[in-house]
């Protein structure tokens, strides 16, 4: 490009100079044609520069013909070639050639093209001198315009600048010739990517680098500030969701009472109902007749999908526990499964001695700790926990609200409370052990040390009841009252705001039933400081929790029901409270008001004393009691005011039945029906229904062996287990047969003292059987005994209803029989009387009739004889 420009410029300059030359010259002297004559030409025409031309005569006359000859000879090479045309047009014969020494017209020679010019020149050279002289004498009178004569260019050094500025090609231009195959022209172009870094030297990088020269540190800055609220705009492209109601809160439209009345009276409604009621009644009756949608096939079949062998109906031995460390022979008095932890079973053991033997060995017995043992499935040798009590425990129960609290009844009449919250994690962890470690190595007996793997800890009891004011004889049964209600001193029922079980009921062989409250009593009188000191001086072992400290040794029963009021000494052995009492739910409104924090309420029992509690009306305060004499008593705990003395007294029992021949050791409600109770005692079993006063629904005939334990099945409504004194378990199924047990199985060699089944899962159900020799057997209940058949609940219910009806019928029949008997007697009586009366009257009537008939006969005869006429007859009658 540069080169091109230079070229152009050169050309232009040449042109310009040429033009300038021609124009300039032609402007003033159009007849002058500058020429360049080479030495050759100069020689030909004898116009050599220095020889032929002088200063005075710098011109020469050349003949036209000579020029033409030269032109012919030398053609283009001739110097006259450029002015060839001028010469041809020249009118004259001789041309004037002037040697331009000064390069006035640009070149060293010039030709004058016209005659006049020639003349002028010739004259001018002569005149020039004259003119100069002339000029001296006439000083500027007339300004004659002299057009500027182009002077020869004087170099002032600008040519150097121009040369500097001018662009010249420094190097030769490189020409490339690129050829391509014709066929490739117009072919579609395919481009391909190539990474510049893949080809070596394909690119030259000019990496940026921080140049310190260009970093300026601004030391001062002038900034304007304004406090504005922080605003942040964010936007995101989202799916457009149209607004739609997430929820609506509304009230349903209702009519007011007047409107309802008005509408109810309107004729249209009456007509509508008349029209519609027929079809509705037809539909209702259709449903009453038959259930259209019942699937007969389905309801015919029994439930399939058994998990075990259906033929196996026996209880399978699973595990057994014995306390090997006790010195004296023990028997198990009470068994309970831990309510929450799997595989933990708790037994209470007592020495196997009769009363005289106890007295005899009383010294030795004092050294023996009386224990409640916690057995876990994972460890059959060592009990997990051992709870210590002052004397042998005959019954105990876990608190339903808190499985870490256990209440037990002693042989000496004391109630003992334990709080094992601190040891709870120890027994919890046994669950994990049992699951993971199946291979518990059983060490042989002689290697066993008393301590073994785990330390045998005796957990001391928390509190015992007061000896003077408690029971005086062995406590035979203990129950926790439900957490929904509580009772006061007079037996009235109030709602329980604590939501925990805080009351107990016990019965003992001293013929009393006591209600206990585990909360601290509100003392009406301020305690004297001396008394306080006394209490404080009692040292408490450090490892005993202070949950029930307020009760220790000072616990008195809340209220006491003595059976002695009924003129008969009943020794209650077992009591059974109704389910309603155990599961009564208070209304939600009250629950909201009594929201308690997560504090363990048993450690904060003070909070539970509220004065104003709402009494619960129509609460069933009746319960069943089984006694040692074999009676079943249905009585009420609510006290009533005795009209004579004005004191609150226990009511008389509602009903009393003597059905058993021995002490009643089981009084239990069915888990399926609230009002069905099972009582076992002596040699027979009885089933009762609450409310049916005439007698038991079912009373089995006397068995060969004494029954010593009993329990309902937890899952099958018609099944219960009875333990015998010879170590057999009788399984009764009410749907199968009611005159004898459905099956019998031998468990151990000695008397069974306690039966307790427990359900862990749908597949696993265990039954714990305790015997007289202190061994606890755990057996697994097979599928058939644990899973109810379809509609078993309703079938058993139906059976009970039938029995009730049967009883009613028996009653009716009895009353009818009584009635009949009475009637028969009356009849007999009446008959005796009536015969007398009847004969007397009859005779009189007969006589009268005879007489009348005689009179008639007389009349007829007389008329027949003609002796008397009709009128005479009347005369005779008068006679």
């Amino acid at each position, binding site marked *: 490009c540069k080169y091109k420009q230079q070229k152009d410029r050169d050309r232009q300059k040449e042109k310009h100079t040429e033009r300038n030359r021609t124009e300039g010259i032609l402007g003033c002297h159009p007849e002058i044609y500058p020429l360049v004559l080479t030495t050759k030409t100069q020689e030909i025409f004898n116009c050599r520069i220095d020889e032929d031309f002088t200063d005075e005569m710098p011109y020469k006359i050349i003949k036209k013909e000579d020029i033409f000859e030269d032109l012919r000879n030398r053609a283009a090479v001739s110097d006259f070639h450029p002015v060839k045309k001028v010469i041809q047009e020249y009118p004259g014969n001789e041309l004037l050639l002037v040697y331009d020494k000064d390069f006035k017209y640009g070149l060293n020679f010039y030709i004058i093209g016209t005659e006049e010019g020639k003349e002028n020149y010739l004259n001018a050279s002569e005149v020039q001198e004259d003119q100069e002289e002339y000029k001296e004498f006439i000083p500027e009178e007339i300004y004659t315009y002299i057009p500027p004569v182009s002077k020869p260019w004087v170099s002032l050094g600008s040519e150097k600048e121009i040369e500097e500025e001018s662009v010249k090609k420094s190097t030769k231009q490189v020409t490339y010739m690129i050829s391509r195959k014709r066929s490739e022209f117009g072919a579609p172009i395919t481009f391909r990517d190539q990474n510049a870094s893949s080809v070596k030297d394909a690119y030259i990088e000019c990496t940026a680098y921080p140049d310190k020269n260009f970093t300026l540190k601004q030391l001062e800055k002038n900034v304007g500030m304004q406090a504005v609220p922080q605003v942040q705009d964010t936007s995101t492209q989202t799916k457009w969701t149209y607004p739609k109601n997430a929820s609506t809160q509304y009230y349903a439209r*209702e009519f007011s009472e007047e409107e309802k009345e008005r509408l*109810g009276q309107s004729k249209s409604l009456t007509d509508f*109902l*008349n029209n519609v009621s027929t079809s509705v009644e037809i539909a209702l009756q259709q449903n009453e007749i038959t259930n259209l949608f019942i699937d007969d096939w389905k309801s015919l079949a029994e439930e399939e999908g058994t998990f075990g062998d259906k033929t196996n109906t026996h209880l399978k031995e699973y595990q057994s526990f014995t306390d090997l460390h006790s010195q004296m022979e023990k028997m198990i008095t009470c068994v309970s499964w831990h309510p929450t932890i799997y595989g933990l079973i708790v037994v209470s053991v007592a020495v196997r001695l009769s009363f005289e033997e106890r007295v005899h060995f009383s010294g030795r017995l004092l050294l023996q700790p009386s224990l409640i043992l916690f057995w876990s499935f994972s460890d059959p040798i060592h009990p997990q926990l051992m709870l210590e009590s002052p004397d042998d425990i005959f019954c105990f129960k876990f608190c339903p609200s808190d499985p870490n609290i256990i209440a037990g009844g002693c042989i000496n009449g004391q109630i003992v409370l334990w709080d094992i919250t601190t040891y709870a994690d120890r027994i919890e962890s046994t669950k994990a052990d049992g699951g993971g470690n199946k291979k518990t190595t059983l060490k042989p007996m002689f290697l066993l040390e008393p301590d073994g793997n785990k330390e045998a800890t005796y957990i001391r009891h928390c509190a015992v009841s007061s000896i003077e004011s408690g029971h005086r004889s062995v406590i035979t049964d203990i129950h926790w009252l439900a957490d929904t209600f509580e009772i006061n001193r007079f037996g009235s029922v109030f709602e329980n705001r604590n939501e925990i079980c805080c009351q107990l009921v016990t019965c003992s062989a001293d013929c009393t039933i006591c209600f206990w409250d585990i909360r601290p009593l509100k003392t009406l009188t301020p305690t004297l400081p001396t008394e306080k000191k006394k209490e404080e001086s009692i040292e408490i072992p450090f490892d005993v929790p202070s949950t029930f400290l307020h009760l220790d040794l000072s616990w008195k029963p809340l209220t006491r029901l003595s059976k002695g009021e009924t003129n008969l000494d009943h020794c209650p052995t077992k009591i059974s409270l109704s389910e309603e009492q155990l599961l009564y739910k208070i209304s939600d409104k009250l629950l909201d008001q009594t929201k308690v924090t997560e504090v363990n309420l048993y450690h904060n029992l003070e909070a539970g004393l509220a004065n104003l509690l709402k009494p619960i009306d129509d609460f069933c305060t009746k319960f069943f009691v089984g006694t040692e004499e074999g009676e079943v008593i249905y009585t009420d705990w609510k006290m009533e005011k005795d009209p004579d003395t004005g004191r609150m007294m226990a009511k008389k029992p509602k009903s009393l039945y003597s059905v058993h021949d021995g002490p009643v050791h089981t009084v239990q409600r069915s888990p399926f029906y609230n009002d069905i109770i099972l009582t076992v005692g002596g040699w027979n079993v009885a089933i009762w229904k609450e409310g049916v006063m005439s007698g038991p629904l079912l009373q089995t005939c006397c068995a060969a062996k004494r029954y010593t334990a009993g329990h309902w099945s937890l899952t099958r409504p018609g099944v219960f287990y009875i333990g015998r004194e010879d170590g057999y378990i009788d399984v009764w199924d009410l749907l199968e047969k009611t005159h004898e047990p459905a099956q019998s199985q031998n468990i151990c060699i000695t008397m069974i003292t306690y039966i307790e089944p427990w359900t862990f899962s749908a597949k696993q159900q265990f039954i714990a059987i305790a015997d007289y020799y202190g061994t606890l057997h755990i057996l697994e209940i097979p599928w058939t005994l644990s899973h109810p058949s379809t509609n078993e609940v309703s079938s058993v219910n139906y059976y009970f209803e039938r029995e009730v009806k049967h009883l009613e019928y028996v009653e009716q029949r009895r009353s009818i029989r009584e009635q009949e008997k009475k009637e028969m007697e009356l009849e007999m009586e009446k008959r005796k009387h009536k015969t007398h009366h009847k004969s007397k009257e009859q005779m009189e009537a007969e006589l009268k009739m005879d007489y009348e008939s005689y009179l008639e006969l007389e009349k007829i005869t007389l008329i027949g004889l003609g002796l008397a006429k009709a009128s005479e007859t009347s005369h005779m009658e008068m006679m």
Partner: protein
Amino acid sequence: MTEVEETLKRIQSHKGVIGTMVVNAEGIPIRTTLDNSTTVQYAGLLHQLTIKAKSTIRDIDPQNDLTFLRIRSKKHEIMVAPDKEYLLIVIQNPCE
């Protein structure tokens, strides 16, 4: 007792009937034997269902009309007798 009461009582005394209610054309209960919240719920829902059922029948055949609607569920059967202005709803437990 008025006729209305008599009829309703008669229907209510059928075996297995849990509740009876009379609802107007807008779904507002007029007479009921159940508690208020249940009534309002049943009335609202069944009223809409009846309208839907009615329109279904009419769509299929414009000359047809809904005379009775019975809904059988696992636990009970709901019977709805519609009319121009009112709706009679009866809930019955068909099994023993």
